[in-house]
């Protein structure tokens, strides 16, 4: 673990334990930063989904590939970055899980849930891995309701 005053980062194995660990870290950090219960749940769930994608679809459980997870607190937001070392992903092939023909599919909802729960979701695929950035804005003196600043 590397840590500065505003930023903490972790290098994690490509395992299911990493998914649980990432979620737990997100829950703890979001809680410590003063986000409300609902927002903490949203942040932790988005991080879990991001970690699942990195471990399963990015690194494909490869023992020689790592996941980098970083949390950064700025004045206005919690910025979470998840990087894998996979082959990258084709964003154009991600189906809309709300389309009638996709409703009964058993997968493909992870990115949709991240976008539902976070204020900003950026996905940057490359041939050496995918970088996912999740941003949750801080509302007011402490993190509060999402509606407050919209």
């Amino acid at each position, binding site marked *: 673990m590397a840590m500065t005053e505003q930023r903490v980062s972790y290098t994690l194995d490509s395992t*299911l334990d990493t998914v649980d660990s990432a979620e737990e870290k997100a829950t703890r950090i979001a809680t410590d930063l003063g986000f409300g219960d609902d927002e903490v749940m949203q942040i932790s769930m988005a991080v*879990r989904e991001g970690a*699942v994608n990195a471990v399963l679809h990015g690194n494909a459980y490869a023992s020689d590939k790592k996941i980098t997870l970083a949390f950064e607190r700025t004045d206005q937001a919690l910025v979470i970055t998840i990087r894998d070392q996979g082959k990258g992903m084709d964003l154009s092939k991600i189906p809309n*899980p709300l389309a009638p023909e996709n409703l*009964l599919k*058993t*997968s493909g909802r992870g990115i949709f*849930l991240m976008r539902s729960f976070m204020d900003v979701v950026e996905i940057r695929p490359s041939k050496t891995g995918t970088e996912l950035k999740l941003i949750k804005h801080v509302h007011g003196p402490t993190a509060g309701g999402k509606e407050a600043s919209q």
Partner: protein
Amino acid sequence: MTMKVGTRQVDGVSIVDCNGRITLGEGSVILRDTVRDLLSKGNKKILLNLAEVNYIDSSGIGELVSAFTTTKNQGGELKLLKLTKKVNDLLQITKLYTVFDVKDDEATAVKAFK
């Protein structure tokens, strides 16, 4: 917290009481195995009681969909009982609330099976 399930029979309906998290890994596998076991034994009326499920991820949602379609493809019915707010919200935003038959009362749910 791992997922625990208990199965009981009420008027020909198999009620699966789920407790814990339905997430990638053990939670999803336990649910999948439970539903498949019921179907293999001819129990085709399945009511998933999710009253004690406070967390579900996209893999868990996928497992619910899989259980629903697997049961339906075998001529059975699968319904959901007593969703927590978090699970209810997730089914709403994924539009799956329109797919599942969701009940709040066990007796009503049991009677609703054909």
